[in-house]
């Protein structure tokens, strides 16, 4: 079972109170972008065994979207953070580094 903490209302709840929203920090490529960029935006996703950054929504709670850093293999959660950022904040990166030294995910490490 996955226990997540919503950074907006502070509730620590189990997974079924939330809804997964897929990969975090996607950059949108829309009209005018190259075929490759548009294809990547639509279809290409990370599928790591280990550190992963995701979007979640507190759907049966305050309703807010937020980000979670977790391990896909162990379900260990490194932390949750605001939806209003384009990369994980330093304290989240530090929390991951403390448990998974040398980690990297897309352009972040």
């Amino acid at each position, binding site marked *: 079972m996955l226990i997540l903490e919503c950074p*907006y*209302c*502070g*509730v620590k*709840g*189990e997974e*079924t*109170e939330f809804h997964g929203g897929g990969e975090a920090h996607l950059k949108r490529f829309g009209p005018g972008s190259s075929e490759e960029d548009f294809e990547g935006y639509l279809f290409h996703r990370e599928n790591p065994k280990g550190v992963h950054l995701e979007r979640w929504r507190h*759907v*049966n*709670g*305050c*309703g*807010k979207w937020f980000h979670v850093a977790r391990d896909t293999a162990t379900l260990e959660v490194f932390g949750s953070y605001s939806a209003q950022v384009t990369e994980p904040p330093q304290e989240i990166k530090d929390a991951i580094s403390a448990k998974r030294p040398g980690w990297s995910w897309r352009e972040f490490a």
Partner: protein
Amino acid sequence: MSETLSALKGARFAGIAVVTEAGLRGMITVRGDLADTDVKNAVTGVAGVDMPGQREINTVGERGIAWMSPDELLVMVPHGEAEQAVETMNAALTGAHALVVNVSDARAVFDVTGPHAREVLGKLMPVDFSAVGFGPGMIRRSRMAQVPAAVWMTGEDAFRVVCFRSVAQYVFDLLKAAAAEGSEVGLYA
């Protein structure tokens, strides 16, 4: 004027806890900047209670304010006063970036009372209902089985549950099953 009825007309069930549909309640959703003085004054003026903090609820009688999210409050007044309360708050919030909506008739409200009330709710919601985990003055939005629900305490061993009116019968049936005679678990004993 037509007579307004609550979803289950006060249905009642007594098992290891007593489940009662609490009837019509005035409920108003207010969205806006909760740090804004105009918003605070508008809601506290109508409800007559202090502004709640994060995940808190303040009530006096049928009036109260519940913190629903960082930009949402639930203001409670007697059912017959809801429309007037909306007008009063809208007038106080003229020019402010805020939303005030009477949602009274979109809701169903239940009271769950008795020494096993914590346990009945604990069977249905992924929430710690131990006395340490949940107490008076707190509000918790979560799910009850398959539908969203919010719950707070109205007294010792007394809980109030709010859900959408469209699922009132479903929630009442859930509560009845969880409160069935002889179904004590003793988790919070």
